[in-house]
């Protein structure tokens, strides 16, 4: 075996990647470049910047020095060629889709998705001529059968919520390669600390940066990472990348940049025209959380293991959904892909259904009842009436949600305090 060169560990990348001390001031912290635009040194440089003859910042909808640190840090953590920060995770998903296809495009997606992503794919994009076929995430045959001549993207969550379905990324990626279609993975739940989808074969990765990447729940943001290895030319299915683009003087993005063609189009068209960019203050706030991501994820996973074991031991609980448990259908895949643990999200079914669920949630005092995951604080929600309420019964069942499903996002509090809170609420749920 030949030893490769030494590279910084993820813990080091999380603190330093993409940042040099500020060249203007020496500031060690990432400065907040709160500016809309940038002064051109001369007219020749201005023209060169606009014509993409030279790199640099023109207008903060397209790029910004503070946002670029966040983009480069996430790209380094994910092992990608680059990244684009967006105003939300939803904007990252939308940006990926509209960069690859238009009217007539088709997506094959896992049925186990965040409710917001399901809304976009199921209800909104069809209005623009983009359809989606949903398939059970672990049914490789269903993925294969759902692919049509117009399919331009395969999409799934590394770990879907709330039923904590684990996507077999290498298997779906292998199918994606066979059919010359890229696989986009939403890795919000796993983060690059627990697993890197690009290493597992995916071509594109996205995050809701609002969640674990930030960890503090104070901002909304998203990020889209390109591995830079999908061969758009060989595929022959992506004219947005391989044919002249009149919106940029006939530029062919795959000629301009072999490894970064997707990001180039996404930035030069997607950010330019749709405008869902990240604000510099948002990037700064996410970076404050990102620095501690590896440390936090270890504690999230440690606490989750204790909560899972505790809930599984309680008589008030019908069933716990988490890949740590051997009975979970994603147990083996999770052990293979996420040896350090795969999810601080879990769900469970209470005896007594919806009524017991209501009593349980209202009896909790430490867990916050709200619509978010991945916070330092532990969170609880009832998906059927909140995050996934627009889904019909069939779609709910396909996503592993019943009227009695309760979803938890385990935070960084002391595990004993969490178990104490859960114990009291479980008692209350059966009264």
């Amino acid at each position: 075996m030949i030893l490769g060169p030494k590279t910084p560990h993820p813990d080091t990348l999380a603190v330093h990647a993409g940042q040099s001390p500020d060249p203007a001031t020496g500031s060690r912290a990432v400065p907040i470049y709160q500016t809309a635009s940038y002064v051109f040194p001369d007219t020749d440089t201005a023209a060169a910047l606009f014509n993409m003859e030279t790199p640099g910042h023109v207008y903060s909808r397209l790029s910004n020095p503070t946002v670029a640190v966040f983009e480069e840090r996430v790209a380094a953590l994910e092992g990608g060629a680059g990244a684009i920060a967006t105003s939300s995770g939803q904007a990252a998903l939308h940006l990926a889709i509209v960069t690859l296809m238009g009217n007539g495009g088709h997506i094959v997606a896992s049925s186990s998705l965040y409710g917001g992503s399901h809304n976009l794919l199921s209800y909104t994009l069809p209005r623009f001529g983009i359809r989606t076929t949903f398939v059970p995430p672990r049914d490789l045959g269903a993925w294969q059968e759902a692919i049509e001549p117009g399919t331009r993207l395969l999409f799934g969550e590394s770990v879907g919520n709330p039923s904590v379905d684990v996507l077999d990324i290498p298997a779906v990626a292998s199918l994606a390669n066979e059919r010359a279609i890229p696989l986009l993975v939403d890795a919000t739940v796993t983060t690059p600390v627990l697993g890197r989808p690009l290493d597992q074969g995916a071509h594109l990765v996205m995050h809701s940066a609002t969640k674990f990447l930030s960890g503090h729940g104070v901002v909304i943001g998203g990020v889209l990472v390109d591995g830079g290895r999908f061969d758009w030319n060989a595929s022959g299915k992506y004219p947005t990348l391989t044919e002249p683009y009149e919106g940029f003087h006939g530029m062919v993005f795959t000629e301009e940049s072999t490894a970064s063609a997707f990001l180039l189009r996404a930035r030069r068209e997607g950010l330019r025209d749709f405008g869902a960019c990240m604000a510099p203050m948002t990037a700064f706030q996410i970076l404050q959380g990102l620095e501690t991501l590896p440390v936090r994820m270890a504690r999230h996973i440690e606490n989750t293991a204790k909560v899972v074991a505790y809930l599984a031991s309680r008589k008030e609980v019908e069933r716990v959904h988490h890949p740590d448990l051997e009975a979970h259908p994603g147990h083996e895949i999770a052990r293979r892909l996420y040896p350090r643990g795969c999810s601080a999200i879990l769900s469970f079914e209470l005896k007594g259904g919806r009524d017991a669920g209501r009593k349980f949630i209202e009896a909790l005092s430490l867990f916050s009842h709200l619509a978010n995951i991945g916070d330092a604080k532990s969170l609880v929600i009832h998906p059927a009436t909140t995050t996934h309420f627009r889904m019909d019964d069939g779609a709910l069942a396909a996503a592993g949600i019943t009227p009695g499903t309760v979803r938890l996002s385990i935070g960084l509090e002391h595990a004993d305090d969490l178990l104490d809170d859960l114990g009291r609420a479980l008692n209350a749920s059966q009264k």
Partner: protein
Amino acid sequence: MQFIVQGYPAYAYTGSRDFDPGLPTIVFVHGAAFDHSVWQWQSRYFAHHGFNALAVDLPGHGRSPGILRASIAEWSSWLVALLDAAAIGNATLVGHSMGSLVTLESALAAPQRVSKLALIGISAPMPVGQAFLDAARDDPPVAYDMEAVWGHVRNSQLTQSAVPGTTLLGASRSLNGRSRPGALHADLGACNAYRPSMDAVRAMKTPTLVLAGKRDQMTQFKAGKALAAEIPGARFVALDAGHSMMSEAPRETLAALRDFLRD
């Protein structure tokens, strides 16, 4: 655009411009297991500022099919054949790393075809470590990691990129990872074996620029400086960058080329 060179199609990026026989031409030649896109931040500028820019994909690289060559002399012969195919009497040649050896050898073998010469990230000879060669043959992913890590300043990922939103090391690694099987090993072997005639180097009349990275981990800074000292009248420019100056210091690299071509 495409040419037919030595029996195979050869691709050259032109900065979205048509080739104009009335303009002077710059031919950009990439390094081992790379393609034309390493010149993204230099070639497009010149294509829009009074030159034909031809950033080639060497045979077996990028969009050019064809046979990998085993020696710098063979690559050089292909490059001169490209000038023939494009009906270019003489051109400025700009080469990086292995490409710098190819362009140097072209200037030695066919000086009448080379109006100016820019050598970026060069040492001549260019010895390649055995571990790197072995990895390129036996374990290409590890070799791509080596090329990416050593091809940039130390701890490149822990610095801000000159190209917003791009990790230079990651993008470079991705580009290497797309190369044809065997390309890196063949290219590194050609670099390792090349020995220019130093008598011919000392007799060169081609105006030459040598661009060296002060923090180059692949070809030593002092080796580039030493070569520049051997070439009569050569201009030597040092940049605060590693081996991949075109992306690590894109504006400075462009400025050095622009100044050189203007004079």
